[in-house]
């Protein structure tokens, strides 16, 4: 099957964002991820899908969970995973992003997984390499595998995505998780709300097809899903919100605010959490409501599905050694 063939379920060379993906393409990745959830739970032999193939995790920003999740996904598929942190690389010595991309490309990896603090950087890099590129988060732009894993959790717990009311709460302004989730949830027919103080809402956010709330109780009313976002520490003290105390009072998720949501509403968080800032610690640990641990598990499965899908053409074109 060649890229772009009419019956190709995922006719894209890279995964740079959710924007531009069709409902069918998203569903395809989620269905495939379901299979990997089961396989991973069986703890059987490592798969050989990516045996002899190299995956490079190229992270220009600190990350533990996303990088580990991709690493595990690659290894479970039998691939060789190399981790590169920007601090240790030549980026700090003045090498440009494009030089780095070309250098890594010359090592013939199968997939480059890239996280970068600037929006659009992963796309720029993808234009210079011949391998597949997965965006593991670019600035405030997109983090597509996070949205996919969130969707997988919702679908498994609620049986559907269409028609769900999802409230995304917190630092929408700087959040790539929010943008990818808004794109995915709208594509799949969910109702999306954003809840935040005005300083953390980007201009014209309603144009992205969301309902905007500054009152958290109203924003959570009858919600099926509450998605909390992390508030970066450097944004807490006077620059965007006056104090942690005030932020938690109005926008921290506690049982009182949770009452507005549906009784069976699920609580999600992309991690890492600031307990006592955006989420009350008891709520975060409430096993009936919080699906934060499942998000981590689904993350690996979704990333396996993405690695599988994006390497398929090359694997079919040339047999693995």
């Amino acid at each position, binding site marked *: 099957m060649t890229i772009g063939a009419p019956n190709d379920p995922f006719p894209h060379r890279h995964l740079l964002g959710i*924007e531009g993906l069709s409902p069918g393409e998203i569903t395809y990745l989620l269905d495939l991820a379901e299979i990997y959830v089961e396989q991973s739970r069986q703890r059987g032999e490592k798969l050989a899908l990516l045996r002899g193939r190299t995956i490079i995790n190229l992270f220009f920003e600190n990350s533990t969970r996303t990088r580990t999740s991709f690493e595990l996904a690659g290894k479970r598929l039998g691939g060789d995973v190399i981790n590169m942190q920007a601090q240790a690389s030549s980026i700090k010595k003045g090498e*440009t*992003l*494009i030089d780095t991309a070309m250098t890594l490309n010359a090592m013939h990896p199968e997939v480059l997984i890239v996280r*970068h603090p*600037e*929006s*659009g*950087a992963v*796309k*720029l890099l993808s234009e210079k390499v011949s391998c597949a590129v997965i965006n593991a988060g*670019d*600035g*405030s*732009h*997109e983090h597509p595998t996070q949205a996919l894993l969130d969707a997988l959790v919702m679908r498994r717990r609620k049986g559907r995505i269409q028609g769900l009311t999802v409230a995304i709460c917190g630092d929408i302004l700087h959040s*790539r998780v929010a*943008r990818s989730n808004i794109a995915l949830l709208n594509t799949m027919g969910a109702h999306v709300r954003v809840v935040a103080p005005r300083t953390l809402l*980007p*201009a*014209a*956010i309603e*144009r*992205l097809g969301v309902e905007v709330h500054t009152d958290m109780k109203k924003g959570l009313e009858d919600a099926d899903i509450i998605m909390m976002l992390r508030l970066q520490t450097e944004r807490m003290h006077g620059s965007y919100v006056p104090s942690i105390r005030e932020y938690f009072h109005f926008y921290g998720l506690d049982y009182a605010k949770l009452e507005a949501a549906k009784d069976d509403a699920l609580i999600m968080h992309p991690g890492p959490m600031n307990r006592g800032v955006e989420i009350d610690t008891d709520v975060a640990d409430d096993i009936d409501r919080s699906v934060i641990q499942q998000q981590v598990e689904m993350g690996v499965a979704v990333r396996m599905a993405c690695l599988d899908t994006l390497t398929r053409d090359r694997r079919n074109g040339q047999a693995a050694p």
Partner: protein
Amino acid sequence: MTGRTLYTNARLLDPATKLDAKGEILAVDGKIAALGPKLGRDGLGKDIETVDCGGACLAPGLVDMRVQLREPGDEYQETLETGANSAAAGGVTTMAMLPNTAPVIDEHALVEFVARRAREIGLTKIRTYAAATKGLLGKELTEFGLLAEAGAVAFTDGTRAISDALVMRRALSYASTFDLLIVQHPEEPSLATGGAVTEGEIATRLGLPGINAAAEAIMVERDLRLVEITGGRYHAAHVSTAGAIDAIRCAKARGLAVSCDTAPHYFALNETAVGDYRTFAKVSPPLRSEEDRKAVVEGLKDGTIDAIASDHAPQDQESKRLPFTSAEPGIVGLETLLPLSLELHHNGALPLLQVLRALSQRPAEILRLNAGKLAVGDPADFVIFDLDRPWRIDVSKFLSKCKNAPYDGRPAQGRALRTVVGGRGIFTAAA
């Protein structure tokens, strides 16, 4: 030099006298000696060169009041000579460069350096602004009087706003002592720091930090108050928003000595040109909404916006092939100034003479240069251009050292055929 050249068969266009007629123009010793429908050949003698314009337009050479040349300091991006060649190819006969070189032009020796190099190069006339504050740091005023005597055309901190209100007040006030002009990059820095595009839906979708359009109007409005206090002469560069244009429109109606220019990208493009992180469309101030673009056209129509300047800003590949927020802002514009401005004529927004007025007469008047009109005794600085011939902009053909323009492949109509400075051809288009 006793060169004599007769330009025949031209469509003479002079916004200053509203002349638009077939005719001839005679240049003697670098100056305009005569012009009219049919100049007599008697007494001209034999040693005269005749240039048949073939019916093309002949207008005052363009006066580009805002360019960045990278000499001294960043000659790998542009030198005075490559900049002058680029200007000549664009029909520009005089240009004023910003002082944001390395070192900064804040000493009269540097003003003299530019003047000497410009004479040696002998192409488009290059004049320079001097820094309004030492090192462009926004704190201490430079020696306005001495710098002006050395030849600085006006005072500006270039691509940085003079942000401190007290410094701006004193700059306007002190400049008025010598009747000098202050040129502002009108953007409130505290609202613009870190911004890469105009705030709005596109910025939000791309996840890029936005600058609200009001950052421009806020600075212009503040400055206009300071102009009122000081009686200084003030020019707002590259205005791009309805808010700033309205403020200037009101100030002019109140009789303040203020003027402004815009750049072609603010009427030829809007924020959608940024597309998918296209760094060639990153400029400062950023490209605006379609409503603001229309307001710029309106401002040109009613004369609120006096001049069109290229805002030529050479940036090499290494400065542009970066993630959007890291990429340098700027578009090279000398060679597209005329064709993009002529779009305003071709699409019916402005009469031809009004377009030319914004490109030559008005900037010359604002900077008080003896240029920008076809008057007997004035320097013979012309552009001869084909108004109608369609072509496509090809950035690889630019004479500028840098090719950072988002116009590659854009259809255009009209371009310079020949550029004349002091009666001497400095550029002739390939046939």
